[in-house]
């Protein structure tokens, strides 16, 4: 209970802090604050597996306010809300989320940054959303340091003690162009008890021209076992040929123990919690021309408990910037169980014609053994987008699918995307 209050205080404190800081730096009308933003309005029509018809309207808004009285201060926020115009199966017609919302203070030297509010943290082993603070700075000797602390933003739909605190740090050292190695630590507490205690090593190494290795090893200090070892070796390009080898070893018991959603409440017979998986893959990718790429890929899935599987296939891609492109792919899954024996096909084409974009995408999965009496699960979509003005794009698409869960499913999607800053030139690439 005390912890609940503490988390609430931290969350409230963070919001108050952000508002207070905003009030301090909010620009006067004459200042040169720059507003970058998008409004994306979507209307989606779909049907659930129990034939409930749903028509949902979504509004996504994101804003970046740069140069808030000072060029080193900015504010970033993004979120969405949904309203079900029609939903025969539920009284819960609305939902919303603040995806991120923080005040950022950035130094002109050392990449020193402090973010306050709801921040997304991707540092070493951490991929978290936190109501609190995040800070980073480069140090002398090509070291870098990041730290964060706050209340984790999580879905807790399984029986876990109320609230929690999360904090962690990431220390890196690099030799520019040769390597970067990092160590990280993360701890999450729930009601004063350790919930997660994780340690990680991450690295990127470029020992020779055309040779690159990257990956990470994460250790669960609570269970005292390795959660994950994942590494890539990238060779090339040799005249357009690139070879990518990837290896991953996961211990489910140690990897999924920090889950807070029911999805990862593993059960023996479906997904054994004591399973250990290792995945070895190889991809050979060749650029025939600047516009055409062909690749073949292979993955071997090995499990201690479940049956093994192999996945192999190839892709052919054609793409010309600002014009269009097309793609074809085929993959075969060959596993020890019936469900893991299928062929996967995909073909797509997209074309830009003046202010209009068109795209067609067809995906088909053919099972060796019928699932719910269906051996072919396919979907086909047709999408169009039109630039009404430099700021406003409108689009629509329709998707038809048939699969083991739906006899005949038709979904429609409308969208309107408005850029608040079009024409100012003050925008990042995406």
């Amino acid at each position, binding site marked *: 209970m005390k912890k609940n209050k503490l988390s609430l205080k931290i969350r409230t404190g963070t919001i108050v802090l952000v508002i207070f800081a905003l009030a301090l730096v909010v620009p006067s009308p004459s200042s040169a604050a720059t507003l*970058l933003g998008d409004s994306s309005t979507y209307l989606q029509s779909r049907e659930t597996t129990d034939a409930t018809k749903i028509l*949902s309207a979504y509004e996504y808004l994101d804003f970046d306010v*740069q140069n808030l009285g000072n060029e080193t201060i900015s504010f*970033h926020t*993004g979120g969405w809300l*949904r309203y079900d115009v029609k939903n025969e199966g539920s009284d819960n017609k609305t939902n919303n*989320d603040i*995806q*991120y919302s923080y005040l950022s203070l*950035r130094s002109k*030297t050392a*990449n020193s*940054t402090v973010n306050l509010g709801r921040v997304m943290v991707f540092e*070493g082993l951490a*991929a978290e*959303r936190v109501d609190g603070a995040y800070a980073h700075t*480069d*140090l*002398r000797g090509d070291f870098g340091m990041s730290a964060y602390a706050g209340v*984790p933003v999580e*879905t807790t739909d399984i029986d876990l003690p109320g609230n929690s605190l999360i904090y962690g740090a990431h220390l*890196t050292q690099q030799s520019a*162009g040769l390597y970067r190695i990092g160590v990280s630590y993360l701890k999450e507490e729930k009601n004063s008890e350790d919930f997660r205690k994780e340690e990680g090593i*991450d690295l*990127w190494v*470029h020992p020779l021209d055309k040779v690159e290795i*990257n990956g990470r090893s994460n250790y669960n200090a609570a269970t005292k076992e390795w959660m*994950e070892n994942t590494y890539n070796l990238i060779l090339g390009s040799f005249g357009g040929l*690139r070879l990518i080898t*990837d290896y991953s070893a*996961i211990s489910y018991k140690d990897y*999924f123990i920090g*889950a*807070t*959603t029911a*999805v*990862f409440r593993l059960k023996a017979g479906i*997904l054994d919690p004591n399973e250990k*998986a290792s*995945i070895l893959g190889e*991809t050979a990718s060749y650029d025939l021309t600047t516009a055409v790429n062909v*690749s073949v890929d292979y993955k071997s*899935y090995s499990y201690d408990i479940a049956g093994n599987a192999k996945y192999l296939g190839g*892709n052919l891609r054609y793409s010309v910037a600002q014009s269009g492109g097309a793609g074809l792919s085929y993959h075969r*899954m060959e596993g020890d169980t019936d*469900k893991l024996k*299928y062929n996967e096909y995909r073909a797509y084409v*997209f074309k830009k014609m003046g202010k209009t974009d068109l795209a067609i*995408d067809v995906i088909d999965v053919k099972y060796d053994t019928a699932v719910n009496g269906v051996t072919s699960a*396919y*979907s086909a979509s047709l*999408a169009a987008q039109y630039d009404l003005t430099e700021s406003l794009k409108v689009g629509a698409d329709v998707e038809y699918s048939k*699969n083991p*869960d739906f006899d005949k*499913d038709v979904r429609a999607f409308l*969208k309107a995307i408005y850029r608040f800053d079009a024409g100012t030139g003050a*925008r*990042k*690439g*995406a």
Partner: protein
Amino acid sequence: MKNKTVKITFTLLLPLLAVVLYACAQTASIAAWHPVEVPSQPMCSDCHTDSRAALNHTSDYSTRHKFYAAQNRQTCGVCHKESFCADCHAHKEELKPSDKYKDSPERALPHRGDYLTQHKIDGRINPASCFPCHGRQNNERCQVCHR
């Protein structure tokens, strides 16, 4: 007792803060955003010869972007707004990224097509690939079955 611990921790952190400030590199921070417009699938090595050259957005880059983002996210931020990450890495997101961008079939976005059937297969093959987005955050649609 608790107050005493807080005071001791705070007292110890002050000299640490001073050390960090002294140790801060004096190098200029990287640009807030990329000074020139880049194409949709940039080949960073066309201009950069240091570690940024590894960020070439080749067709296989999407499967490896997590490694680069975990080590040096500030570099990602030079070209990408925060909303770019949030399109996929979001809390209780309800719309599939591939639904929002159906007019860009060339983009490597998760859950293309009607993914309801396929997610049962992919989830068994490599559940760790689902975990970053669904392990501690989930949406109402997932909760209909996963309760």
